[in-house]
């Protein structure tokens, strides 16, 4: 039997700069990081397994097509997750939820992009707007790709329960986990922009989270149903949550 035969030692390649306290060499030091990323699947794979390579590629002059690909992936993945969200209420929500989620995330990213660029300039970074845009696109892409991973779980729950608060809470938890990993990527990316951020990035992260959370209320209903596509009344997201729980 081959089970007991000696095999060469196999250690999966580690992900630099993720969990290790090892020194953080400049991007591109490793020749593998200079290999261009082609295709959509390769972009997702690189984001998950070789984040430094993606960060290096985003800093190149020709990063435009890569950023476009990332944005397309983000829109597609958020739309697919949106369909899963829509299966809870069915009907109009099957197309309304994907549209709202994809558009909401893109708009949230665009709204927050200028402030992030300004923060980076204030902290002494030489980063171009395109590089910052690339990092925001990566943040959205990583978030939505992870949401796709959560989609089967969300689907099982959405077919079982009738409780809007329970489904809303579940989607929020999945969004929070995805956002955590997305923001971690963004933070790591910024350390390579020679930016001494201090509290600037933390403030931006807080703003981004608030914007996305408010977007869920501004574009409601996403999980439940309503008579109109847009909400008839303006509300702060905390008030909306409290009302939903009553």
């Amino acid at each position, binding site marked *: 039997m081959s089970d007991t035969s000696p095999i060469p030692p196999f250690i999966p390649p580690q992900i630099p700069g993720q969990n290790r306290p090892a020194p953080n060499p400049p991007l591109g030091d490793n020749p593998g990081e200079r290999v261009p990323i082609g295709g959509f699947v390769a972009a997702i794979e690189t984001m998950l397994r070789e984040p430094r390579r993606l960060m290096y590629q985003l800093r190149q002059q020709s990063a435009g097509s890569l950023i476009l690909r990332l944005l397309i992936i983000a829109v597609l993945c958020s739309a697919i997750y949106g369909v899963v969200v829509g299966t809870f209420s069915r009907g109009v929500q099957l197309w309304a939820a994907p549209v709202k989620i994809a558009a909401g995330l893109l708009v949230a990213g665009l709204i927050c992009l200028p402030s992030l660029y300004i923060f980076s300039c204030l902290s002494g970074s030489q980063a171009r707007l395109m590089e910052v845009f690339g990092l925001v696109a990566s943040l959205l892409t990583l978030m939505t790709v992870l949401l796709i991973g959560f989609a089967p779980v969300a689907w099982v729950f959405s077919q*079982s329960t009738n409780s809007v608060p329970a489904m809303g809470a579940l989607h929020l938890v999945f969004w929070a986990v995805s956002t955590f990993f997305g923001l971690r990527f963004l933070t790591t990316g910024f350390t390579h922009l020679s930016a001494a951020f201090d509290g600037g990035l933390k403030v931006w992260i807080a703003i981004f989270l608030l914007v996305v959370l408010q977007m869920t209320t501004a574009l409601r209903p996403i999980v439940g149903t309503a008579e109109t596509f847009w909400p008839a009344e303006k509300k702060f997201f905390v008030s909306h949550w409290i009302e939903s729980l009553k």
Partner: protein
Amino acid sequence: MRTLTCILCHQQILVLLRAEPDSLRDWVERWQPARFHLCVAATVLGAGIYGAVMGSWRDPWQALYTGIKLPLVILLTTLGNAALNAMLAPLLGLNLGFRHCLMVILMTFTIAAIMLAGFSPIAAFIVWNMPPLTAATGLTSPEYGFLQLTLVAFIAYAGVMGNLCLAPLLRIWSGRAVTARNVLLAWLTMNLLLGSQICWVLRPFIWDPSRPVEFLGPEFLRGSFYETVFEAFRRLIFP
């Protein structure tokens, strides 16, 4: 030829149960469809036997249904979380591919299912000792509570042991105990989240006092496991 196949399968199962990191690593690294099929077959058989014992208290048909549903829960959980687990591993610092992740988790469940098969005679003994399902044995009777808790405890123990067998392998791959622990905890959390809900959807496993024996209850897509637990806590705190 058939005898030889049985012997080979038996040896493979033993390799899996010993859970030596080198052997497990070989199973994951060298993708062989035969091993994958063996894992699926062992899961179906092991969990199926235990499920049949669980359901046998109520009725032979319930034994058949639970014998089908318990392996189904395991396989659906493995498949449902496959993509997510493969994404979480590299994000937490362990650069494993999709197929590797799938195989590792399937092996974990296989070990748990084989353990459950081993517990089946004990579970059968407990079921045999339980008073038969009559008007005197209700949902609130201590015998039913004991049966429920014991059967669930066996499943929980097998699940935990299956995962603990996996831990040394993850530690070798990641090179760090913290990374291995994080990946294991992330996988466990997601498998628990989805697994409990799939169990909820596929209920009843032992019996439903208000219904005849059936594969799925009429309310299989109503409510969720966590809402019910939350509601029970709420009733306990605010009666």
